[in-house]
């Protein structure tokens, strides 16, 4: 899906919770989090967490120059404090 949109001429970035699958599928840009399924933006009502993850991904649209890059911010599930 992501590759299809990128090939149509729109830059894309996706969150992934499965690194190995992403390495196979090879989307143009991805942000990997070791989070449980169903939680790509983190936990319910955690505004700072959701905002940080979304913004990290969107910044990747500007900053990533190598196709296939997977960003890994390393936010540990339920441990990392989002300011």
């Amino acid at each position: 899906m992501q590759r299809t949109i990128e090939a149509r001429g729109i830059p894309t970035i996706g969150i992934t919770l499965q690194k190995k699958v992403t390495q196979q599928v090879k989307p143009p840009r991805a942000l990997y989090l070791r989070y449980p399924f169903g939680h790509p933006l983190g936990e319910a009502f955690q505004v700072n967490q959701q905002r940080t993850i979304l913004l990290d991904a969107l910044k990747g649209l500007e900053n990533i120059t190598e196709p296939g890059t997977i960003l890994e911010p390393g936010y540990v599930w339920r441990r990392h404090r989002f300011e």
Partner: protein
Amino acid sequence: MGKLEDLKNAMLVQLFKRVPWLAERWAGHHRFIRGEGIPWTPLGKPLRECRIAMVTTGGVHLKSQPPFNMEDPDGDATFRAFPTDVDKAELTITHKYYDHSAADRDINVVLPIDRLHQLRKEGLIGGIAPILYSFMGHIDGPHLGTLMEQTGPKVAELLVRDGAEAVFLTPA
């Protein structure tokens, strides 16, 4: 799908949620479309000037729209479209292959609508595309072809029509 299959599925959903590396192992035995080369479109202007669109495979849709087909073990390659300024109370999730209890309470967990509006107000993005597109991610068998050849390209066309200048995607 029979009751026993449903039960087995529900157990796997909980197991994969709690033990993510098991899901990676499951994925290792599963068929995915391997990418040949990597398509690439650079961002044409700064993020603060870009109109951002969102696409999810989390099975989100309007309560008034038909739910995704949960009876077909190969999933459902169709998509649902709804406005970005939707009333969140109108949204629901049909997807039995992941635990969406957190997203049921706060949709921003899988589709960060409020956070996107927040970033626009802060001036960090230029705008928001008018329509959100939603698939259910668990697609296999003949539906993979439908996704790759029909509904996927269709959504890409619609995103171009919507004036999307970058797309953020979220999984289940």
